[in-house]
């Protein structure tokens, strides 16, 4: 339920900066028992007869609402061979319906100065608008209409496919670090579709068609596969009434897709790979471990496990008080930057990772050894009570800061509900963080920071590109070092 490192794609970079950064920065909820109860008590939850779930988060500071619809479908639900389809469909959802031709929804939102965008992750796809409260019903009508009314022609589908290919160029091909991350995911997941990039592999993106998109849309988009989150200047009953009048009129999908993805076999071998690119001026070493997410810890009846990993991630790698930064950057001076993170928000397994970039004259091997020593020390000796308290204070305070931003609140609840958590789970998050002990943190480190379930990636400068071929089109050099 910590959002700090959840990866997703947005429809357009130009519009979303504010929201994206606030989402990434805001970790989670609520502090002292008092504030926690206040924040939790305000959130209401309903289910319509057709299965649509509604969450309402009142915030009356300004006459504004944030309206989001989240579909329980993401890149991990794509048919093999169709990578990028969930994200492509997200783009195509702006191409109009029989009732509202292309551009009309966006034009109405723009006329009122509203903000809109959409995003796709491995586990979910979401759409949102931020509008004056009087316009809430209007955007709900539009959103309900495009839940089932999408019309696509090749005239709009094919140029949009070029757009997502350019998006891939911007995010991946032009960025060696992003390409390393893509390779590491592919190597970390031996069997689970989390190994595919959300944006898709280029050769598969190039073949995505109108029919692919419509088939996927009809299979996954329906009221019984969606959660609507409304945050802002509205009371729960009024929101429920509007939801019934709009989304409530839509027939449910005959069959909800069970999201039973292929699971990982026991991982028994550490993997490593190297991405060499002539444009790398600052080498780096990164590692990701396969670990429980909040959802899998809960399903496996391991209460507190995910929370212990959250505290571990903070102490090990968040900010300049963290173990990684202090040891590698300040004390040993072997790195110019270093950190670690834990991503708990996933329907299936979560990821824990660290990264570091070497100081001048330090090899990646030396740097990795230093990072391994930091991890070994936490496994052997645990963390101090003082470190833990500082981390908890900082993490729980973020929940109060989140209340200053209704869009962050909406994203937080939406993400949780898409990745196996409930409204109550979110409400109780501060209490669960507070309950974490130093013993649990050490146990989590010992159990889960196991190289056998990890991939280590090295980013290095390629000094010998073959003549005549652009470096970015060369096959990635992936070497097994095990």
């Amino acid at each position: 339920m910590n959002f700090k490192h959840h990866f997703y794609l947005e429809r357009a970079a130009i519009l979303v900066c504010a929201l994206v950064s606030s989402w990434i920065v805001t970790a989670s909820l609520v502090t002292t028992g008092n504030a926690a109860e206040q924040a939790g008590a305000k959130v209401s939850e309903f289910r319509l007869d057709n299965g649509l779930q509604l969450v309402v988060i009142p915030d009356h500071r300004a006459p504004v609402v944030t309206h989001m619809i989240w579909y329980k479908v993401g890149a991990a639900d794509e048919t093999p061979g169709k990578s990028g389809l969930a994200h492509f469909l997200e783009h195509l959802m702006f191409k109009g319906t029989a009732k509202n031709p292309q551009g009309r929804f966006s034009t109405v939102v723009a006329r009122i100065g509203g903000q809109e965008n959409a995003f796709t992750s491995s586990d979910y796809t979401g759409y949102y608008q931020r509008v004056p409260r009087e316009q809430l019903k209007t955007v709900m009508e539009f959103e309900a209409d495009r839940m089932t009314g999408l019309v696509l022609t090749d005239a709009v589908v094919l140029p949009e496919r070029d757009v997502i290919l350019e998006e891939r160029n911007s995010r991946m091909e032009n960025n060696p670090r992003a390409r390393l991350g893509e390779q590491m995911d592919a190597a970390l997941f031996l069997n689970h579709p989390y190994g595919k990039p959300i944006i898709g592999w280029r050769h598969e993106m190039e073949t995505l068609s109108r029919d692919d998109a419509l088939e996927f849309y009809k299979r996954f988009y329906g009221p019984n596969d969606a959660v609507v989150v409304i945050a802002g200047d509205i009371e729960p009953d009024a929101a429920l009434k509007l939801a019934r009048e709009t989304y409530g009129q839509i027939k449910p999908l005959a069959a909800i897709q069970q999201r039973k993805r292929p699971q990982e076999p026991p991982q028994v071998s550490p993997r490593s790979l190297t991405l060499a690119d002539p444009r790398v001026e600052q080498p780096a070493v990164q590692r990701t471990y396969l670990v429980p997410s909040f959802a899998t810890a809960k399903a496996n009846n391991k209460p507190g496990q995910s929370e212990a990993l959250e505290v571990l991630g903070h102490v090990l790698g968040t900010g300049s008080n963290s173990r990684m930064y202090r040891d590698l950057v300040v004390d040993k001076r072997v790195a110019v930057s270093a950190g670690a993170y834990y991503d708990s928000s996933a329907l299936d397994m979560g990821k824990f990772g660290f990264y570091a970039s070497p100081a001048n004259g330090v090899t990646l091997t030396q740097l990795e050894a230093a990072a391994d020593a930091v991890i070994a020390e936490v496994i052997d000796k645990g963390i101090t009570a003082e470190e833990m308290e500082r981390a908890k204070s900082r993490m729980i305070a973020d929940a109060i800061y989140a209340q200053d931003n209704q869009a962050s609140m909406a994203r937080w609840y939406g993400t949780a509900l898409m990745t196996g958590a409930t409204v109550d789970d979110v409400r109780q998050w501060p209490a669960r963080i507070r309950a974490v002990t130093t013993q649990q943190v050490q146990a989590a480190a010992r159990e889960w920071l196991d190289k056998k379930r990890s991939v280590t990636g090295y980013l290095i400068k390629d000094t010998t590109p073959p003549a005549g071929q652009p470096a970015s089109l060369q096959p990635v050099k992936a070497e097994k070092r095990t």
Partner: protein
Amino acid sequence: MMRLFAALSAAAFAVIAAAPSASAMDIEKIVSPSGIEAWLVREQAVPLVALNYAFRGGSSQDPADKAGAANFAASLLDEGAGDLDAKAFQERMESRAIELSFQVGRDEFHGSLRTLNENREEAFDLLRLALTAPRFDAEAIERMRRQTIAALQRETSNPNNIASRRWWQTAFPGHPYGRESKGTLDSVPTIAVADLRDYVRRVFARNELTISIVGDVDAKTAGELIDRAFAKLPAKNDLKPVAAAKPAGLGRRIVVDLDVPQAVVTFGGQGLARKDPDFMAGYIVNHILGGGSFSSRLYKEVREKRGLAYGVSNSLVWFKNAAIMMGGTATRADRTGEALSIIEAETRRMANEGPAADELEAAKSYLKGAYALSLDTSSKIASQLTQIQIDKLGIDYMQRRSAMIDAVTLDDAKRVAKRLFGGGMLVTVVGRPKGLESTPE
């Protein structure tokens, strides 16, 4: 088509009246016991305080051979101050969830603070230490220097950074605005502790200090908090003058070779000063051409119709001593020329013909509504109040803004479009765009 347009207009009309109004925000001018002015918005729903402030004198104060000095100093303010070394200072901030940030713009040093109400006195104490007693310990200096140099090294092969730097260097040769705030691989190694102290001494003063505070705090307490952080600063700054400048190189295209599959394009030209009477008209026509929404001409022509790019946009940027408009896109190498031709043609068309009446109305409607919607957190409100003060727009600007937008006529828009977009652009392209070469100097 007519019916669709009528329906849209009706919807928009209903909305304009209902749009949330930033004028509803109650801004109070306060004066601290020691005489420092600030603007306050009281917001009691969430138990926090957000402070935003600015000192006149940003990276344009860097000595010509010490580009990056201001930025370097800013990176060190929370790395030890007073009796607290870097570790103690950082631990104090984290254990109280106090957030301090420092950023250097070309004309100003910007800072912000966010704290839970229960820790606010300690937060403002830490800020005082950072501004009045930064330690600049050798360990922290060398650590930040290593980080900055690493970032600069990384940027040497990043097409976005290369395109942007080349644009600024060419547009403002020999002027502080042409220098990179972060400095260069030549300058950063030479910056010494004396340079950092010199920047702090010359810039951190009470006379050109702008402060905004938003949160669960009354005027009296806000004044006391402000004095806690700022009262001990010197009364007067000691700034070097910065010359007025206009962007040079308009009409030129510079192609920088880099082996990347997607070419990155930066384009821009002369803009409008914030105090120019035509500013609002220019702001509106720029929005129509390339503003950040799904409905601009550039977005429709470059992305929606042709799929040439993921994003394309254009903005007005204004400084104390110069004003520009600039935009960018990133597009596949084999069609970069096509994308650039469309951008240039659309810019020319806007200069020659101006916007259509319905585009003007739609843009006005958007810009009025979006303003209030964008002020959705305490920190964003505080930051906007600081900018209004720096731009000297008046404490009633939020109330007057909608009327200023409404007052722009179609004739104004056409006239200002010609003024803004008729002067030619400087274009930098980084990548291997097929068939595109630099124009002669």
